[in-house]
């Protein structure tokens, strides 16, 4: 005799406190166990790629900011590298170092949001505010450099819009000094908390082969045990001059590739970013940051694919130029878009509360998913 159970379709709708943005997850439940997850996206589509075809190369930069708005420096960096490859220009070394510093600061800020909101989803409200307090200091650093806190328009193809502010180095070193003990405190409060570990360990286990088959990149892939980071394996800018580790998930609190591993990879990446920033500040050369910016960007006919390691994964820009002042086609390989496919695979067999935990560990930003 078989028991007839009814399947309930639950809609974690576009308006929900835990889906990070406007994402609609259609869950098919049997009791409390999830049998299928279908993500519906497109609520934040703003036609970025179509807009670019009407703008000049210089005017595209504010638009690239707004895709992944929590990691805007990374977006701009990818685009700048792509256009510089097309134009075949060499930027001064000072520009490269400053770009690395900004990208790593942005990585810390983005991971702080990821960690804080993950804690808030699980129910711990206090670490969220501690993370945002630290993030305020980073945003202040950005504000004195280029004038904006979230969407910078700072990294231009060919250089930067402003040189560093005279107070920047002093304030950054102060920030690094204050941040290290704050990280220890955050670990004590959230990462090693038994209840948090019970909620996230052995939940959403992602085996390495599945991750590679789906094309997952970033902390998700590293959480599953694979040591792949574009900053070491396909270095761009001046990353080959710095000494830093690539943290990988080791299954300390559960199995390799569960949510706790992904979360802990992010925490350790913040520490490594601090190391990179210190080394970059020590090695910073002098120079003029605006000297290589072309007056009019009119690249020759051709195509280029440039990729950078964004906090969420590998961000790629595929630019086709037809010789005019506007790009012919800009295609963005957004990491969150590719990572979101994993939801169905990971959530099978878990409970509704775990769906929230898994979504938080995937760390998506809807601006990037929908562009």
């Amino acid at each position: 005799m078989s028991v007839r159970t009814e399947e309930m379709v639950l809609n974690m709708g576009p308006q929900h406190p835990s889906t990070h943005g406007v994402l609609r997850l259609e869950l098919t439940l049997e009791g409390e166990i999830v049998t299928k997850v279908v993500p519906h996206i497109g609520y934040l589509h703003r036609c970025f790629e179509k807009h670019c075809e009407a703008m000049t190369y210089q005017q595209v930069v504010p638009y690239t900011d707004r895709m992944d708005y929590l990691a805007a420096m990374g977006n701009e960096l990818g685009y700048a590298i792509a256009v510089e490859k097309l134009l075949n220009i060499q930027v001064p070394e000072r520009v490269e170092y400053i770009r690395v510093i900004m990208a790593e600061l942005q990585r810390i800020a983005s991971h702080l949001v990821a960690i804080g909101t993950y804690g808030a989803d699980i129910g711990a409200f206090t670490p969220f505010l501690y993370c945002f307090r630290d993030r305020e200091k980073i945003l202040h650093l950005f504000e004195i450099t280029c004038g904006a806190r979230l969407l910078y328009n700072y990294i231009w193809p060919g250089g930067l819009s402003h040189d560093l502010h005279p107070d920047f180095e002093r304030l950054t070193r102060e920030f690094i000094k204050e941040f290290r003990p704050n990280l220890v405190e955050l670990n004590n409060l959230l990462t090693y908390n038994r209840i948090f570990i019970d909620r996230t360990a052995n939940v959403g286990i992602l085996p390495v082969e599945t991750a590679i088959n789906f094309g997952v990149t970033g902390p998700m892939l590293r959480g599953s045990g694979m040591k792949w980071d574009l900053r070491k394996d396909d270095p761009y800018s001046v990353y080959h001059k710095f000494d830093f580790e690539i943290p990988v998930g080791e299954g300390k609190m559960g199995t390799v590739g569960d949510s706790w591993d992904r979360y802990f990879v992010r925490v350790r990446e913040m520490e490594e970013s601090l190391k990179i920033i210190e080394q970059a500040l020590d090695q910073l050369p002098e120079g003029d940051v605006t000297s290589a910016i072309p007056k009019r960007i009119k690249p020759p006919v051709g195509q280029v694919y440039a990729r950078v390691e964004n906090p969420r994964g590998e961000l790629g820009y595929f630019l086709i130029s037809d010789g005019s002042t506007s790009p012919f086609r800009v295609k963005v390989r957004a990491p969150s878009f590719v990572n979101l496919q994993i939801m169905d695979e990971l959530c099978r067999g878990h409970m509704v509360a775990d769906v929230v935990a898994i979504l938080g560990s995937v760390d998506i930003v809807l601006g990037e998913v929908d562009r």
Partner: protein
Amino acid sequence: MIYEFFNNLIGNEIIAGFIAASLPLLIFILPFALIAVLLERKVAGHMQDRLGPMRVGYHGILQTIADIIKLLQKEDIIARENDKLLFNIAPVLVFAGSYAAFAAIPFTSAYIGANIDLGIFYIIAVTGLVVAGILMAGWASNNKYSLLGAMRSAAQIVSYEIPTILVVLTLVMFTGTTNLMTLSENQSAYFWNWNIFGGPELGLAKFLLIPFMIIAFFIIYISTLAEVNRTPFDIPEAESELVSGYHTEYSGMKFAMFFLAEYANMFAVSAIVSALFFGGYHSPFGYLGNTFDMQWLIPVEQFFWFTFKGVFFVFVQMWLRWTLPRLRVDQLMTASWKYLIPIAFVNLLIVGIITLI
């Protein structure tokens, strides 16, 4: 004392008893709920390096009054598909369950709502009304999320009543009475007479009992935390998963009733824990009334100590809420059935053996 006052005023014993049991409690609960809401927000703010409400009144003191006025003037929304009778009764039941528990808690030596001989038993029985209220609220909301929240909440409350009862049994076995008044009276004068330190009788049994009493205190504190649906057990109201669970669909005054009931429940449970283990309304150091030879001061002081202990445990509950993440449903059940109940049971046996010595 208050009973005689009303009896002289009205002449009818039953009505006087009724009023004496309910009116002072209402006068106590309402200002307490006001203060508790504000306290929670201020404590949350300061723990998170911010300030909490600051604009209404000096440093936000009048914030709760503003909240109440806002809730009073809100539209009472009842969806078309809701079961109207259940929808309207649910908040009343939840509030009644928490409120009725106050009747058997001794506030001072001069006032207890109703001096029932089966004090604790009555309290535990009447807090079961809350389960019925929550289930009604979840069902009548006609909302899948609310239903899920209500069912989880019912399961949670029922399974955490068992460790509570086991610990209460331990205490009853040890002190020999279920009347909260006598329990408090036994722990008179100076803190080493409190039950958590082994009780009023000096002897080998007292010192042997201390570790087991401490374990019993932790068990009952955790179980009562689950009974009032506070983090880490606040799945029914999990804001990030179910958007407020069983009271999502309520607006205006009915929502205020749920809110009020939660804070009243928190205080009731803290008061019970302090009465059982920490001496109820007795002061830890002796009375000013005794030193100055003003006997009328003693009940006032006892009231002060009673509220102080109650508010202290409420503060610890709030402290836990802002520190810990939330447990998942099955982990909650595991914690209760696999951890708390066996330990409470073993504790019961050991305390029983020691009492026989």
